[in-house]
């Protein structure tokens, strides 16, 4: 009941949800043993910047394009190729269609 069987494995969401709820309650109780409060409106709540003054809010927010710098840098070659492929030119869209059509015809018909 409620189990997805794929022939190679299975997945039962209900079991997992029950386990999660039980563990959540357990850990929540454990967590509530800890100290709750902190001093609001003090230096405590400022971002830690190794003692440097905080920048304006816009500068504290890293831009989406710069996220994953490490990943895109290590795959630079691939991304240059992909950017070159996506020209945005309508003629190229048609050209890709013709190419795929030709490949399918080659494999399928000849």
């Amino acid at each position, binding site marked *: *009941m409620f*189990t997805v069987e794929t*022939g*190679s*494995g*299975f*997945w*039962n969401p209900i*079991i*997992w949800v*029950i*386990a*999660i709820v*039980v*563990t*959540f309650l*357990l*850990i*929540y109780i454990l*967590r509530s*043993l*800890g*100290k*709750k*409060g*902190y*001093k609001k409106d003090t230096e*405590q*709540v*400022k*971002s*830690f*910047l*190794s003692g440097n003054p905080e920048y304006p*809010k816009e500068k*504290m*927010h*890293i831009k989406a394009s710069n*996220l*994953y*710098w*490490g*990943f895109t*840098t*290590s*795959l630079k070659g691939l991304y240059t190729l992909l950017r070159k492929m996506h020209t945005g030119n309508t003629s190229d869209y048609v050209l890709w269609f013709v190419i795929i059509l030709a490949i399918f015809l080659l494999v399928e018909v000849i």
Partner: protein
Amino acid sequence: MDILGLSETVLRLIIGTIVVALFGIIFGLLYKGVDRKIAAHMQGRIGPPIRQPFRDIRKLFTKENVVPENAIPWIFNLVPLLGLVATISILIYLPIGGFSPIMSWGGDLILILYLLMFPSLAMIIGGFSSGSPYAIVGAQREMATMIAYEFPLAIIIISLAWKLTQVGSVNVFALSTIAGTPIWSNVTGPLGFIGFAILLLALVIVTPAELSKIPFDSPEAETEIAGGLLVEYSGRNLAMFYLTDGVKTVVMASIIVVLFFPYNLSALPLLGLEGGSYVAYAIDILFYLLKVFLVILFSVTLIRVAIARLKIDQIVYTYWVPLTLFSLVGLIFIMWDGWIMNLLGLV
């Protein structure tokens, strides 16, 4: 399924979950202490006592739980909790010692692969939600690391399952099947043996990244980004992450044990033990704890003492190019194993 059977299952699940949760937390902290002690000895230091992690947790619980003003409070407080909960939930699918998993039919290896992402995801979202540049840099590094090591990890898991399918097993992703048919007995020739050895080695290299340990700890990198994605966390929230780390170490080591060394000592005819007796269970548990210790020793302690930290683009490169090729070679060896043996007429 009737009501009685259903309620029994649920009861078993609830009690079992509580037991494995406590087991995971206690042994996670214990192994952490052992790991620190051994690492210290290797570096010629005395190191903290083994019960130090327990003291750390107690100390963190008495500290203030600061929520920085740039953070989104509800996400900031929720994710450490969820990360720990998800990590503990993996333990109900893993066989521990001589016991079969509490819910052997509830989930499989792919589920575990996904659940293993939750703690990292919790750290990433926690880091992002704290709104500090250090934490954000750390979080994006953690995300890149996660993408990086998931490639070889997927190859390892799929190769194992593929091999089991070839020898005619059903439910090849189920942990009980994998534990029941140890892979070393399924190889047809030396090529397959080498293939699995390569995969084991790859998994050992994946482990430190999965656990954010040196040399793959650039998300935390105390020396450059001041603790990275955990920089704004304090008090009980930080304690949650600390516990997650400990439990995850046990989980990861248990997975390696299940995949590659699912043997039990009590099954040896030499000992002459009855299956299912208390002595047999006790021996199996002890043997299991020893295996977990050895795995942690080799894949965490030794590597982190021996190698310096890599840069983030080096991490991605390491996992995506050399290690992926390496594991693909392992996969190809496994695929060719039976074929070549047939060709040579050795089977």
